[in-house]
């Protein structure tokens, strides 16, 4: 729920800022300086990690350094193992995410449109959203087998709830004033929905999807930990069992990179689909 709330807060400040004349822009020089700080922080962190791994924790059973991790990545790539595991996990994530979105948005729209549907559906949604569903992963593996579909099911069960909740919140959040304004021209319910409710829900829906990215990746990995034949989570658990820390870290790094890339992609999508919040 926290993402919905923080997004609602962002929308509020947007409304008050609207009284300021000119569009806001980051000052260019300041942006560059901040980038410099960010890169210094990243490189500094890696250097520190390398130092700790080489000098303080010499036992390679406990920690792999960035350098060793990089070497492991190259090796896994050359073997073709990296591509294989990433492909399997990527499929699990994308299929699960797509199903969750394809089901979650219509369900959210339906609960927003009708109080009765909301009354029937919402206790389940909020109940399951608050439950650590991930605990059901072993059960899902029992049901759907060791292949990708059990992981798809885990991803769906984690992603669908924030999507439903944010979609509903977004539609309900539509400003009454705006609805009235369009109604004053004789707009019917369908027009009000298409021209007011849906556009005002869009930033919320996208925030829900962005939230789903992180949860979906967790679903893939945890699902694979409980039973799989391939995938990045499988790579990680296999490497842990033979104490191959560089490979384990390589798996983690790939997952982290996927998370960062997907989140950035969604931010770019938001800028495209919600230009009025940025221009």
């Amino acid at each position: 729920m926290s993402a919905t709330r923080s997004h609602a807060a962002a929308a509020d400040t947007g409304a008050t800022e609207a009284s300021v004349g000119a569009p806001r822009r980051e000052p260019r020089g300041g942006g560059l300086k901040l980038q410099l700080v960010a890169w210094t922080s990243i490189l500094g962190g890696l250097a520190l990690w390398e130092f700790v791994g080489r000098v303080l924790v010499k036992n390679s059973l406990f920690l792999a350094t960035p350098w060793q991790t990089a070497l492991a990545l190259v090796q896994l790539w050359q073997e073709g193992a990296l591509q294989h595991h990433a492909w399997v996990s990527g499929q699990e994530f994308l299929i699960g995410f797509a199903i969750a979105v394809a089901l979650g948005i219509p369900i959210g729209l339906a609960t927003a449109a009708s109080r009765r549907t909301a009354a029937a559906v919402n206790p389940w949604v909020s109940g399951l959203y608050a439950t650590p569903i991930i605990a059901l992963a072993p059960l899902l593996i029992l049901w759907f087998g060791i292949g990708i579909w059990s992981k798809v099911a885990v991803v769906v069960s984690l992603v669908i709830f924030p999507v439903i909740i944010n979609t509903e919140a977004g539609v309900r959040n539509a400003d009454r004033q705006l609805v009235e304004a369009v109604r004053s021209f004789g707009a019917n319910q369908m027009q009000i929905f298409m021209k007011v409710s849906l556009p005002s829900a869009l930033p919320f829906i996208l925030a829900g999807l962005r939230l789903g990215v992180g949860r979906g990746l967790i679903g893939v990995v945890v699902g694979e930990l409980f039973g799989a034949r391939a995938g990045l989570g499988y790579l990680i658990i296999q490497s842990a069992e033979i104490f191959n820390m560089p490979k384990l870290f390589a798996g983690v790094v790939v997952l982290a990179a996927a998370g960062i890339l997907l989140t950035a992609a969604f931010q770019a999508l938001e800028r495209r689909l919600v230009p009025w919040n940025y221009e």
Partner: protein
Amino acid sequence: MGAAKLTVASLHKSFGGLAVLEDVSLAVTPGEFVSFVGPSGCGKTTFLRIIAGLESADHGGIRIDDHPVTKPGMDRGFVFQADSLLPWRTVFNNAFIGLEVNGAINPETRSRTQALLRLVGLGGFENYYPRQLSGGMRQRVNLARALAVNPEVLLMDEPFSSLDAQTREIMQSELMRIWSSGRKTVLFITHQIDEAVYLSDRVVVFSRRPGRISEIVAVDLPRPRPLSVKRSPEFVAYVERIWRLIEDDVRLSVLEEGG
């Protein structure tokens, strides 16, 4: 006096047990500019919303050109007090929305909307988003949006109340210019008595809730009225007279609302 453009016949409205409007009757002639003043909470907005068809009356009715109105329609345009532009639409698409929901999407209505935006001084800003505009510019878009459907009656609920004093004065004279070029019938709510006197042919004074018409003051100042007319003794006399009519009610309603 010819046939009335708009007639309001013994309108009653209450919300739950709260009587808000009681027996309000009024006839407005075509092209007339009528303002409404009265203490806060006396039912002015409710009155205008009933005329717009956004709210229904308990009793009594509204007629435009002798046709009863119960629903919103293109014969009326509403300019809201609060900023009610759609943030995801550009200036042009905001101004165009009334025509759009009525299916009037064609080159002719498009160029008419363009012309209206120029009329309200927003030529060149068609592709801006509302948040890129100042408060005064946004209210101009609101006005253009209401005018775009080419309504016969323009309903304005404190349209300038959020603007600073200078912008407000400029918007008043702009509104006068636009009104004289099209001569729409205008119903205009305000708390500024001088604004009401400056703009109007008649000023309708509401009593405190339940709102009734306590007096109608005809403003006999020659048009066009330059802004400097506000310093003339006749103008000041009108303002004083109307203020005296509502002074006691305003005081009482403020005390009531305060606790």
